[in-house]
């Protein structure tokens, strides 16, 4: 029921080499206990989802259609304002900028993560000494706490003492105020985010490559197709479904990124790196005065956007599972 990738995991991952049977095709007789026994095992999860997902979500909708001041928050008598918060958000001058920043952040990050991830996956597919070990090391950035990566990048991109500027200056370039100038702040967080996303793309695309039979390549070789031709005529088309899932998942997860941008630039300077998620976070928690109602409105808008793309993901996945 997860991605089709579960069917053929990366090598060395024999542990989860599971073929997921299609429950519609194979519905065996009830083996153990009644319907109620099954429900009993699932009951803690259902209760958990209600209390820790449904309730906070309802609360967040509730925040967005009331005017919650700090006092109203504690006393619980906030005024009902309907869609006023949403109207205020949509007509705010920040909305356009946040939307553009979000789009740039997501699209540019994804393009580079995907291209680099795919190139590396193809590279690592040819077995050479230590390829497994090196591929494993590529996972490191993905496993580090985001605040760690974000602080390392902050220091590397520091205007005066950062290594990146040292290198640029050493090659005769100009020092760049990566994080403190409005022209480059968004670029800086995108660079860090690309770095963070490469391992994820590499692992999934590598697993997808394993699914392409080597016979196809052999046949192509016999027909005289070179490496470049093989990539465009075989690898890329056959990898399409996996690519689609990788990109859509990446999109859904990149949309909600807060930590990395918040720690590196806090959305600044002058909102030049403010995305929708950052906007929402700053309204709610970024200042001393939590302003939860508009923050919740932005956040809920973000959910809607994420869900739209999420459903694309689910559709592709379903088509995959049926084929």
């Amino acid at each position, binding site marked *: 029921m*997860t991605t089709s990738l579960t069917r053929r995991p990366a090598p060395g991952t024999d*542990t989860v080499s599971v073929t997921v049977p299609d429950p519609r095709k194979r519905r065996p007789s009830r083996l153990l206990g009644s319907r109620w026994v099954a429900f009993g095992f699932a009951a803690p999860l259902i209760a958990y989802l209600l209390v820790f997902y449904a309730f906070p979500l309802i609360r967040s909708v509730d925040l967005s259609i009331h005017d919650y001041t700090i006092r109203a928050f504690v006393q619980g008598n906030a005024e009902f304002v309907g869609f006023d918060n949403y109207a205020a958000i949509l007509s705010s001058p920040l909305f356009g900028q946040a939307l553009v920043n979000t789009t740039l952040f997501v699209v540019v990050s994804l393009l580079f993560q995907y291209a680099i991830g795919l190139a590396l996956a193809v590279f690592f597919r040819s077995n050479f000494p230590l390829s497994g070990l*090196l591929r494993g090391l590529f996972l490191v950035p993905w496993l580090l706490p985001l*605040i760690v990566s974000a602080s390392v990048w902050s220091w590397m991109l520091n205007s005066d003492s950062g290594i990146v500027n040292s290198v640029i200056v050493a090659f005769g370039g100009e020092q760049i105020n990566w994080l403190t100038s409005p022209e480059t702040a968004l670029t800086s967080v995108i660079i860090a985010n690309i770095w963070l996303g490469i391992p994820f793309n590499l692992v999934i695309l590598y697993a997808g490559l394993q699914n392409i039979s080597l016979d196809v390549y052999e046949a192509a070789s016999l027909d005289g197709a070179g490496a470049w031709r093989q990539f465009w005529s075989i690898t890329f088309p056959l990898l399409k479904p996996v690519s689609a899932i990788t990109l859509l998942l990446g999109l859904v997860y990149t949309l909600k990124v807060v930590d990395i941008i918040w720690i590196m630039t806090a959305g600044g300077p002058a909102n030049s790196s403010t995305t929708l998620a950052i906007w929402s976070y700053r309204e709610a928690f970024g200042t001393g005065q939590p302003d939860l109602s508009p923050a919740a409105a932005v956040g809920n808008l973000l959910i809607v956007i994420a869900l739209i793309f999420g459903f694309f993901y689910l559709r592709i996945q379903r088509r995959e599972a049926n084929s």
Partner: protein
Amino acid sequence: MTARRSWWKLALGVIFTALMLFPVYWMVNVSLTRTQDLRLSPPHIFPVNPTLEGFEAVIRQQLPNLGTSLLIGLGCVVLTVVIAAPAAYAIALLNLRGGRTLNFILLVAQMIPGVVMAMGFYAIYVRAGLLNSVWGLILADSTIAVPFGVLLFTAFMSGLPRELLQAAKVDGANAWRTFVSIVLPMSRNSVLTVSLFAFLWAWSDFIFASTLARNSELRPVTLGIYAYIGNNTTQWNAIMATAVVASIPAAILLVVAQRYVAAGVTAGAVKD
């Protein structure tokens, strides 16, 4: 492929890996740099006069935070496995009614932005008195891993041979007995995978920590680093030393459980 060509590839691979891991190396390098050398331009490429003053600061100031993070991580692991494993058993093997719907809800749940969840939790915790508590953080952090856990367990358990359940039934075992003595032991590897991710995500969490525990006496280490960045921008060696220490669980897990990591990424296709 000729041997010569594969050495060429190895060299390229090493270069790519070195480029990719440079920030990690730089973190270690800065963590060992003396305070007076931090502003050197150009900086030393490797620690010329290595010092442990950054790590002394970690031990002086961050030990309680590391303990808190450990507690939160382990709490999340237990909570996630206890909730997710039985539910997956019901979906995968007991033909739970509405199992497909439940899986669908779990996929959607993973798409909800953390900021929105944080606001919901904040609003609830203010009233419930759970703000700034370790328990509150464990509960909130577990929402990152629970949907992933159920989906991964379901995929794994669906692949278990049903003859085992049949045999258990013949031997007179009920559903609970079968779960505890057959299904769980056989799912050991997926329990490890889920635990690993639940721990890492909880350990790395910043959004929930910064919103639900900002004034807490018991702070996780992510907030410790964040406080450093805010107050103490000259002490980058201490910040990087804390970052190194905060990365240790990831490093250990990568060495010990590399194959589970890859399995988890591909199986759940989840990044958070």
